């Protein structure tokens, strides 16, 4: 028995920092409370450095239960950056809403550590472990604004459905184990290709796995919890959740399906196809009717999950799967950047006691705060997928790989859904620039402004030259 | 499987059951006698020589007592609770070896019902079942005192179960097995109380709380809770709770003697292997005496202190003991 923790070193750093901060935060006096977010961010930076240092460092570790490759490095870099962004998002917000407890950052770190483990998981046991590690802190964070009823309600809903979906996922794992007598992805693949596996059971198990992760990722028809939870959770948590939790689920799912399940592609491709189309359409159509910006972004997030799911559809096709993976993970990065920018705007506009969350409250903001308005315009354009923003390239590569895989109808559905989405995304911008409205004072906070500014610049500049980022995504190959 | 083997199992099982029930009966007698001596009283002295028939008389009396069921009690659970409580106490010693192998005219008789390599796990599993009986008894009685007593008992038992479980990890680490038979054999070089003194002390404190004995008899604190979880029980159902408590005392003493005090080991065992059970029961009697002694001398401790002691002192201490033991075992290269 040998111990080699290097493959999960970033995970160890983040989880260790979370443990240390949990205790330190209890013991140091109130005037040192500002150290907690600072140290949390520092630990994330350290993890980022280690993670990037592991690029092109392909190896499996811990009895082959985890594996690092460029795919996991790329995904983890997104997670860690989104963690840093989430801290910037939260710092001012939780102070002014009176929920400034050190546990906020600790739970966030735990959740991120779950994500980091998730993208490296080469064994279904680790997938489950990581999924729980990432979700359980999110349940608590959702209910963090505790005496507020909608926060408590959201936490309970999220917890119950999350626990249920974990059950489904675990059942899928159990079925796969029963069918193949392996929980490792390689083992499952080899059992299937040797023909020793019970194929109907493998299909059912894979489907259960898909449903379990689809629940977490808010894929239609398992999305019903998402709008309520996104609305009830503290806004800074919602921002974190809409990127991190969703992305981590998909990253794990992608690895599982691409590595272990090509043999069942015949059965499951059409299911994926159907789910992706449904998610894009329902998410975008339901978003039109929303008056609350958090709900609108929640439905938008569901729709974006649909786009990401498109990349899964050709998972059985060896010829184009690399393109597909690259476009999906590129899209993930694009979505994360624009999403954090948009959520930072929402956090900045939100007023005490939940005011300033209706889309009507945005009326006139663009004229009084031109920079904020322009930034929001950029994020919305990126969500729609219009040039010159990064979102355009995200959708471009995604649709290209789908068309390459000969799923023309799916690509058309995606285009149609994007068209629909233009209406509600642009409505926010129209509201900001072309309407007069209540005089809402936007919070001025250098962290939030910085987050908005950096995201907007990134969306624009990377949109002008997406090559390097896409090249990185294209290098982020899954290793078998 | 030949019928002889099954017959052997049945006979051994009956011996265990009889010894547990007799152990229960004569522990009450033993306790009353010892308490009386310690309090300079005479104690029971009427029924038979040395009042040896006293437990029998008590049992017969209870059979002829009326059994009451409170009107609003949950009847099924109320009747089931004492049964659930007593069964674990009767079966927990199944894995304890009473001796080595006897050779009776060529017939090899092992003085153990079974020797499983999951013995310690079995003990922990079974002892935790009895918590259900007590909780259910308190809850189903529809009586404030019973419910409070049941809750207190539950909270106390689960709190001390942690320390109890961890205190057994130390000996398992030293022995490298969970089988009690092997643990006893390993103690030929020295009882585990010598290698694991901290674990032994934690074990003995935790089992006092586990069987709700003084000074941790909060669940039955007469002054505030009348009789705790069995307030509403009378007749033979009460007898079952009584039996469970004393049988558990005997059982945990037997397990403690086996894990820490060398079990059936003792002098002259190689000449006369039948001495094994004798040595075991002598050790059990000594431990029971300690139980009674503590009851006679120490006052009941307050409930918040009881919980604080369990969680803040005993549990961390047990954890530290396990880790220190592990470090020592690792660096001694496994004895």
């Amino acid at each position, binding site marked *: 028995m040998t111990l080699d923790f290097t493959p999960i070193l970033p995970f160890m750093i983040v989880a260790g920092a979370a443990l240390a901060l949990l205790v330190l935060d209890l013991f140091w006096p109130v005037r040192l409370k500002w150290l907690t977010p600072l140290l949390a961010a520092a630990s994330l930076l350290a993890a980022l450095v280690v993670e990037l240092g592991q690029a092109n460092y392909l190896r499996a570790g811990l009895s082959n239960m985890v594996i690092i490759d460029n795919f996991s490095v790329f995904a983890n870099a997104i997670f860690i950056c989104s963690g840093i962004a989430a801290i910037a998002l939260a710092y001012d917000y939780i102070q002014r809403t009176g929920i400034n407890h050190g546990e906020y950052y600790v739970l966030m770190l735990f959740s991120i550590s779950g994500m980091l483990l998730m993208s490296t998981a080469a064994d279904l046991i680790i997938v489950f472990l990581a999924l729980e590690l990432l979700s359980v802190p999110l349940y608590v964070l959702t209910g963090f604004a505790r005496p507020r009823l909608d926060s408590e309600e959201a936490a309970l809903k999220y917890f119950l459905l999350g626990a249920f979906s974990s059950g489904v996922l675990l059942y899928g794992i159990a079925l796969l184990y029963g069918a193949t007598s392996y929980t490792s992805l390689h083992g499952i693949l080899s059992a299937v290709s040797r023909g020793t596996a019970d194929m109907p059971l493998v299909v059912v198990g894979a489907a259960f796995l898909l449903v379990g992760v689809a629940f977490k990722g808010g894929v239609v028809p398992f999305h019903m919890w998402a709008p309520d939870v996104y609305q009830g959770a503290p806004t800074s948590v919602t921002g974190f959740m809409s990127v991190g939790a969703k992305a981590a689920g998909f990253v794990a799912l992608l690895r599982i399906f691409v590595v272990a399940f090509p043999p069942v592609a015949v059965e499951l491709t059409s299911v994926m196809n159907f789910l992706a189309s449904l998610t894009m359409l329902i998410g975008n159509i339901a978003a039109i009717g929303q008056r609350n910006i958090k709900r609108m972004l929640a439905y938008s997030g569901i729709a974006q999950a649909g786009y990401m799911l498109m990349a899964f559809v050709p998972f059985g096709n060896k010829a184009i799967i690399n393109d597909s993976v690259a476009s999906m993970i590129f899209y993930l990065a694009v979505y994360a950047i624009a999403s954090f920018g948009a959520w930072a705007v929402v956090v900045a506009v939100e007023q005490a006691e939940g005011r300033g969350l209706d889309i009507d409250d945005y009326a006139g903001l663009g004229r009084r705060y031109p920079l904020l308005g322009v930034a929001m315009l950029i994020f919305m354009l990126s969500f729609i997928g219009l040039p010159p923003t990064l979102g355009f390239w995200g959708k471009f590569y995604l649709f290209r790989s789908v068309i390459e895989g000969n799923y023309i109808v799916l690509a058309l559905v995606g285009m149609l859904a994007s068209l629909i989405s233009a209406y509600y995304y642009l409505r926010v911008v129209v509201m900001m620039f072309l309407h007069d409205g209540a005089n809402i004072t936007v919070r001025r906070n250098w962290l939030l402004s910085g987050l908005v500014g950096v995201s907007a610049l990134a969306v624009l500049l990377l949109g002008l030259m997406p090559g390097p980022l896409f090249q990185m995504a294209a290098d982020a190959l899954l290793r078998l | 499987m030949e019928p002889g083997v099954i017959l052997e199992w049945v006979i051994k099982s009956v011996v265990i059951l009889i010894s547990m029930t007799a152990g229960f009966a004569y522990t009450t007698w033993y306790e009353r006698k010892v308490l009386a001596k310690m309090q300079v009283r005479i104690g029971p002295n009427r029924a038979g020589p040395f009042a040896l028939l006293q437990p029998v008389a008590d049992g017969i009396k209870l059979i002829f007592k009326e059994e009451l069921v409170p009107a609003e009690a949950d009847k099924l659970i109320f009747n089931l609770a004492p049964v659930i409580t007593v069964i674990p106490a009767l079966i927990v010693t199944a894995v304890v070896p009473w001796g080595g192998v006897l050779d009776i005219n060529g017939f090899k008789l092992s003085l153990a019902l079974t020797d499983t390599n999951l013995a310690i796990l079995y003990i922990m599993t079974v002892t935790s079942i009895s918590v259900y009986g007590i909780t259910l008894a308190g809850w189903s009685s529809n009586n404030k005192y019973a419910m409070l007593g049941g809750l207190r008992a539950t909270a106390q038992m689960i709190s001390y179960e*942690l320390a109890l479980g961890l205190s057994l990890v130390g000996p398992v680490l030293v022995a490298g097995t969970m089988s009690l038979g092997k643990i006893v054999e390993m103690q030929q070089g020295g009882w585990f109380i010598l290698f694991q003194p901290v674990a032994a002390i934690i074990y003995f404190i935790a089992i006092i709380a586990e069987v709700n004995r003084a000074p941790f008899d909060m669940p039955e604190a007469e002054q505030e809770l009348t009789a705790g979880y069995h307030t509403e029980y009378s007749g*033979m159902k009460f007898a079952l709770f009584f039996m469970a408590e004393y049988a558990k005392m005997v059982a945990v003493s037997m397990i403690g003697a086996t894990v820490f005090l060398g079990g059936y080991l003792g002098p002259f065992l190689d000449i006369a292997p039948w001495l094994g059970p004798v040595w075991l029961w002598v050790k059990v009697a000594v431990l029971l005496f300690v139980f009674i002694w503590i009851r006679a001398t120490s006052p009941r401790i307050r409930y918040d202190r009881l919980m*604080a002691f369990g969680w803040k002192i005993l549990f961390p201490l047990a954890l530290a003991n396990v880790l220190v033991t592990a470090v020592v075992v690792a660096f001694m290269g496994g004895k």
Partner: protein
Amino acid sequence: MVNEFLPIGVLIILAVALAIVVPTLGYLFGPRRYVPAKSRPYESGMTPFGPGTRRVSVRYYMIAVLFILFDVEVVFFLPWAVVFKELGVPALIEMGLFALVVVVGLVYAWKKGALEWE
């Protein structure tokens, strides 16, 4: 393997039989003289008031949750202890990490006052 547990099965059957026979004896031989007052809850002679089962202090739930948390850990310790000598120092490090997480949990619960009984 199964053989090790069959004798315990025999013992359990006999113990269940005993545990059922004993209250049946009381049922058969005990007198039954019903008086309404006998079936009222016993409160040391006072007239009982209010429901017998009522809301339970949240402390008990807290203890139960903490117990589950730490009991799982104890269960993890046992198989580890059995194979510890074969695995040696790596197992020590791994269990040390595990115990560290648990201890942090205990410190947190302690400092937050979950162990206070007020």
